[in-house]
């Protein structure tokens, strides 16, 4: 998948899960401070991505240890798919 395709899938999932507006989901947005996504939310998010999107994902929790922004998350997903 291309980065744009991953971004579209991820954005769609986040809009379903997190009471966000699409305009908030930008690459520089901090997951915790701007988007109010905490560590428990991240687990639910990754599970949703696996179950509900075409993104084929095989991951370990450590892969996301340094993820702080939406852009960081995209980078990791791009690397893992």
């Amino acid at each position: 998948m291309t980065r744009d395709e991953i971004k579209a899938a991820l954005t769609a999932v986040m809009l379903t899960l997190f009471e966000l507006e699409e305009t908030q989901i930008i690459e520089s947005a901090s997951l915790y401070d701007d988007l109010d996504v905490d560590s428990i939310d991240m687990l639910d998010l990754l599970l949703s991505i696996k179950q509900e999107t075409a993104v084929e994902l095989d991951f370990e929790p450590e892969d996301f240890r340094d993820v702080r922004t939406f852009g960081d998350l995209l980078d990791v997903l791009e690397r893992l798919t």
Partner: protein
Amino acid sequence: MSETVIAPLLSRRVAAAGMSYVAFGLFAPLPAAISQILRIIPIRAERRQLYTRQMIQHLCWLFTQLMQLFGLYRHVVVREIFDNPSGKLVVANHPTLLDAVFVMAYIPNVCCVAKASLARNFFTGLTLRQAGFVLADDSNLFEKLIDKLSHGENVLLFPEGTRNTSDLELNFRRGAANLMVASGCDVLPVILQCRPRALQKGEKWYQVPAERAEISVTICRPFSAEELVDQTQPRTLQYRQITRALVAFYRCRLTP
């Protein structure tokens, strides 16, 4: 910011505060000390943990009575349930330093989430471990709490995370909601009020109100996640809605 009038340093009330702190220091290691002595009796670790918690409950109750006796605070307990709760997520707002003591005085078999500094403290550390309390920085905190709830222990959480600066601040984080959804347990709200406000963050032990404060403890009926939210929704939405429902509940009960 608190508008409570503080008692002068050389006053009966400050002396009462000092005596209360000394009493707490003497009481705190007692459950662990007695529990260590009980080791000579061949009982299972779970029973020993339960006995330790029973002792903690009695000592917390005694401590609250002592503070009343010393004339430091008076307190009022209102119960909306009369049977002993089990396997409940006990949540409370957090206006004072002694909130955990008041909750533990009136709710049995409570597992607390303790700050790491309390584990390192000589007076409280041994008791914490014998009572099976979990440390806030434990990497498996969430799983351990779910396990405890499933075994019938009551888990105490302060959703505000730290003492508030006003009753209606109610800056609840989602930990309680996360646990409710993950474990399927009911929440048992406890409402704490202190009038005038006392024992607040940043206050020294001798900064007590000039007027005797009243601490009220209301133990509400438990309710389930099902009563609060539509559980067919994604869990992440449930966490947020449950948290808002809890805030609304507390706001309603705390608004004069």
